């Protein structure tokens, strides 16, 4: 019974993913989950990514995503990265990419929308907003260091 429910959920997920994919999981090692609304699912290579998905990794997890404008984003272990907004026009290259690194480590290479309009890509952290003019950068939010002894 449970298996049938899980299968139904997977089918529904895959069907929905085809509709508005903005990117794809290309690398998934260890514990990697994608949260979409109330549903959480282990991230597999080839899985579609949608705006407002949240990427979560466990202590042995890391994951890499590609986006439709050729942006690349990866996260290390114990990370939470939310895709808040994403749009990209393949004809004009106009777009916006807003993500939040809640905790953990992120590496990224900006894509075509940033080339077209600097700072179209923004990464929010608990204390800052970073505008990306290009191209490769890393960000850490070291939540563990804030836990008082």
């Amino acid at each position: 019974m449970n298996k049938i429910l899980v299968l139904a959920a997977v089918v529904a997920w895959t069907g929905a993913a085809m509709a508005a994919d903005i990117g794809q999981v290309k690398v998934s090692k260890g514990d990697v989950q994608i949260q979409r609304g109330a549903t959480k699912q282990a991230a597999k290579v080839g899985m579609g990514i949608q705006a407002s998905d949240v990427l979560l990794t466990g202590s042995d997890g890391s994951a890499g995503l590609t986006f439709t404008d050729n942006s690349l984003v990866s996260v290390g272990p114990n990370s939470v990265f939310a895709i808040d907004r994403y749009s990209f026009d393949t004809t004009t290259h106009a777009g916006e990419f807003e993500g939040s690194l809640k905790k953990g480590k992120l590496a990224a290479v900006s894509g075509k929308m940033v080339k077209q309009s600097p700072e179209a890509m923004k990464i929010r952290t608990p204390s800052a907003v970073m505008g990306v003019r290009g191209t490769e950068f890393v960000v850490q939010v070291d939540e563990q260091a804030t836990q008082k002894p």
Partner: protein
Amino acid sequence: MKSLAVFALAALLAACASAPKHVAPELFVVVPAKDGHIGTIVVETAGQKRVINTAFGAERIQTDGAVVQSTMTRDQVHAIFADAVDALPGRPASFTLYFLEGKDELTADSRVELEKVFAELKKRPLPDIMVIGHTDSVGGLAYNDKLSLARAERLREMLVGLGISGDRVGAAGRGKRELLVPTDDNVSEPRNRRVEINVR
């Protein structure tokens, strides 16, 4: 929406310099690209924007909210970020094929080249392929938008015909917006009549 409100509150607290605070330390670093290109990021915290545009140029936000800028070494950055950097997907690759004037037919040379491109595409597991058509500057904007899309769609059909799954290939036209060789308007230029095949 809730997270926005929380964020706004955090920003408000950060702006109030006298309030004692304890935030998660943050670190932002510009990393040189493989081709040596050094990018630029702008970090805004507590209403202050700071530009970082040097190799391994870094900004730290400390637990007390203080901001410190520095230059790190490649090894220091590697020690912290190796897991994340290793998980970055392979860099996208790009190929260019050329078309006959005013048509969606490949030139003879490019028909031969297509075989090589196809072999490269087949090497990638689960490739995401985007075919982007371009034109030279002969004709109006609407005409060229249509022609560029026809070229991209024609090439998409050829890739699918060679055995690439159709749901992995997209097509788009850029018209005459992105001339490879800059020319005046209404100039026939073979190198501008092309498609780019981008694979992720």
